[in-house]
């Protein structure tokens, strides 16, 4: 049964607002911070906001597809974190810093 009978009290709009706020905070972090690790963390935050909204819609509509999508997003986020952190370690090994503003020196 529903833990709190949440359907009677919380509308889907509240979850939409919450997810939008979370996504905006993550967007602000990506734009504002320079440390590449914090940037990756803010991307995870944005992905989690989307996950929360997917789950909310899935539960409210009674359709399990949304939760499967959350599952796939988690998989992609894990792969992204692994490769991103590997690149970050490589950048740190070459430049001794993780500042993304330093990376405008990259040449193709």
């Amino acid at each position: 049964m529903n833990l709190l009978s949440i359907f009677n009290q919380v509308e889907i709009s509240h979850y939409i607002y919450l997810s939008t706020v979370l996504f905006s905070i993550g967007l602000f972090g990506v734009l504002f911070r320079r440390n590449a690790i914090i940037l990756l963390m803010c991307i995870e935050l944005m992905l989690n906001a989307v996950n929360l909204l997917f789950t909310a819609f899935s539960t409210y509509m009674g359709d399990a597809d949304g939760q499967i999508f959350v599952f796939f997003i988690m998989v992609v986020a894990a792969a992204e974190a692994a490769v991103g952190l590997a690149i970050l370690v490589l950048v740190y090994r070459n430049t001794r810093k993780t500042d993304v503003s330093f990376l405008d020196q990259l040449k193709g």
Partner: protein
Amino acid sequence: MLALISLNAKSGPNFITMFQNLPIPFLILSFLTILSSLYVVTSKNPVHSVLALIFTFFTISAHYVLLNAQFLAVVNLIVYAGAIMVLFLFVLMLLNLSKETEPVKSNWWGIAAAITAGSMLLIVTAAFQVTGEAVAKNPVEGIGLVKALGKVLFTRFVVPFELTGILFLAAMVGAVLLGKREKNNAVLIPKEEGGNS
């Protein structure tokens, strides 16, 4: 755009009454989620950021429990809080970045980022207020349990599931290849700290 803003302002009194009928656990959880995610963004110390992000993931898992998505709640804890954040913390400790090393950005940059994120928030909220409630409530029992999700995952989504394995293999090979040390690595900055990491 102005019409959207005025529409948003028009629903001002609605906005306060919107919070009155909400259950207390939902309010507390949402408050904690937003607060800790703000701390992730604003904290100077990266280790504090990581710990705050772990706390954010815990609260989001609690939201999943409230939403009757029990499997996702457990997987979120295991994958995000357990694996990904430990990876972040490990890299942070490995690179010895736990102190404040970030140069201060100018105020203009912060203002521009705040305006961008705020207008994103405003536009999505206003767009939702225009479209309104389009979702019919159709709760189904046990939709978030392993049995129901497994049935969907291994019938309709079996091809994406297999492709996920290929993606993971590629990511694993890529991470190992990137992490492997090359012999005579050209260092952009002459090493004055001594030692090669």
